[in-house]
């Protein structure tokens, strides 16, 4: 049994113009201490998938079916109170924009005290601060800066503080939604190294949501590629890198610059993702796919385990 098991999850946004299937029949497993990269372009449903794991899909989004099991318990059946007690303590979530993720009128210390007391109301201030100091040191922020306000920190430092908050209560799972997108490349690499380091030290599992395959390729254990709400490929990252099987993944990998071939032109994928209000029949990638067969336009391929632990949704592999 995995730590987190998502099974045939479907999330719809019920808009006035019709239902938008943001997450379509997604199943995957997350083991203890695993680093999973969730890759997809804007609108592929990766953030919705992340938010549905803490059951905070913004309205009009609704989890229509499927199960999300943590340590065997389906959190879809949990009461709102039970969910609140899990968020932050068992599953933490880190948002994209570190500049506005901290309340501007609260000192860092107050954020920690508030957060720790949300889950452990009896904790004294001194105790909370002591724990805050430890985690701040873990993420590379000087503990004496705990009395400062968020605006006194840089973006990268704020994201470190967000990470510190997220791991304070030793959660089993941390979901980070594009944690480095708002930061520059150097800071991005440092933050990602930090996540790996924290995983090695504390053994929590991470779900790293990103639109940048190159960011997660070398750091994650497994990679899940999403397109138009569904999984198109799911495999160990090394395997995915060496033998990408879905045309979409192949094209994504071709889009990563390679320093060994300096004059190689990067190939873009023509077209844009489908309108989910009116999804294409058959394979959702078929309108942009260069290797399509006639049946791709009419029939929907199933996600198949082509070799152990390598799942692909494409007729080529059947």
């Amino acid at each position, binding site marked *: 049994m995995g730590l987190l098991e998502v099974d045939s999850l479907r999330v719809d946004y019920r808009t006035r113009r019709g239902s938008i299937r943001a997450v379509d029949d997604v199943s995957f497993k997350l083991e203890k201490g695993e680093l999973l990269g969730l890759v997809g372009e804007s609108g592929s449903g990766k953030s919705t998938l992340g938010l549905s794991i*803490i059951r*905070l899909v913004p309205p009009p989004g609704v989890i229509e079916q499927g199960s999300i099991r943590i340590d065997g318990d389906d959190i879809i059946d949990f009461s709102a109170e039970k969910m*609140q*007690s*899990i*968020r*932050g*303590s068992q599953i*933490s*979530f880190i*948002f*994209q*924009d570190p500049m*506005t*993720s*901290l*309340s*501007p*009128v*609260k000192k860092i210390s107050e954020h920690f005290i*508030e*957060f720790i007391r*949300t*889950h452990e109301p009896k904790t004294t201030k001194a105790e909370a601060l002591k724990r805050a100091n430890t985690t701040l040191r873990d993420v590379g922020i000087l503990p004496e800066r705990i009395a400062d306000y968020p605006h006194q920190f840089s973006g990268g430092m704020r994201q470190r503080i*967000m990470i510190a*908050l*997220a791991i304070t209560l030793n959660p089993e799972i941390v979901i980070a939604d594009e944690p480095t997108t708002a930061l520059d490349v150097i800071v991005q690499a440092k933050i990602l190294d930090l996540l790996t380091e924290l995983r090695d030290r504390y053994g929590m599992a991470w779900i790293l949501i990103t639109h940048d395959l190159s960011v997660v390729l070398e750091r994650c254990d497994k990679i899940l590629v999403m397109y138009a709400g569904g999984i198109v490929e799911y495999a160990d990252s090394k395997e995915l890198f060496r033998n990408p099987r879905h045309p979409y993944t192949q094209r994504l990998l071709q889009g990563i610059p390679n320093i060994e071939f300096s004059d190689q032109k990067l190939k873009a994928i023509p077209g844009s993702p489908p309108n989910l209000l009116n999804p294409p029949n058959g394979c959702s990638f078929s309108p942009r796919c260069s290797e399509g067969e006639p049946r791709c336009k009419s029939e929907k391929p199933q996600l198949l385990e082509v070799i152990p632990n390598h799942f692909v949704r494409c007729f080529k592999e059947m």
Partner: protein
Amino acid sequence: MAEKGETRGLLFGLIPGLKSLAERGSAGWMIIIGTLIVFTILLITALGPFISPHDPTIPNVNPPPNPSPPSANFPLGTNLLGQDMLSRILCGGSIMIQVAFLSVVFCFLIGVPIGLLSSYVGGSLDKTFTLVMDSFYAFPGLVLAIAIAAMMGRGVINLALSIGVVYVPSYYRIVRSQVLTIKELPYTEAARASGARGRTILLRYILPNVVPSIVVVATVNFADAILTAAGLTFIGLGVGIDVPDWGWDLSKGRELLPSGAWWVITFPGIMIVLLALGFTLIGEGLSELLNPRLER
């Protein structure tokens, strides 16, 4: 949490604080001057009963004729009843200030919680409250205050309530619009993702970020409330004739103006204008300092 060192730091920090305020340009000076005016008037009013040379309510029989112009014995003259105007100026602010203060507190206690709740919950509750508040807003403020004051009768509390009702919608609107923005910001979402309950999010994350705007509205409203209070006492809806009050003196002085007794109306008028000006300066200065869009 405040330690000894902190308090001392605060006291010694006051002078550099003023200096840095002055360096913030016109907004800083507005706050400094406004605060000086308001504090001086508050001080005068607080000490009034102890420092006034005559009893402001007892008519002075000599020297007739009344009203008498400013003289050595009565530096600001006397009114029709022969009461010393200086003493009436020194003592006449307390009712007005109490009324204005209480009405602002009243607005705060009603407008802020309703604004928070209504915008946070949203839906039909929000629509209902907005409709009610907008219908209050539609009345001309002074007319509404007069109507309510006439219904409720005399007294500081009644006056404060009738003025407060007029301004509750402004607080409601400001709070509501702020909450609508703040509740969509990532730190609110982050708080929710960290397991905080709705009440915690509202009181610990949203409210503290709304407070600066409410403070600005409150100071500006203070000036308004003072003018409204003066208006109410002017038309006789004040506390009572035996209590010295600038608004009351203003209305009595108006009758004497044709006979050339300018001093009865001028000095209470100046006091009311100064007090309102002081609060307006503070309010405008604060809103300029706190509004990042106006910052250069």
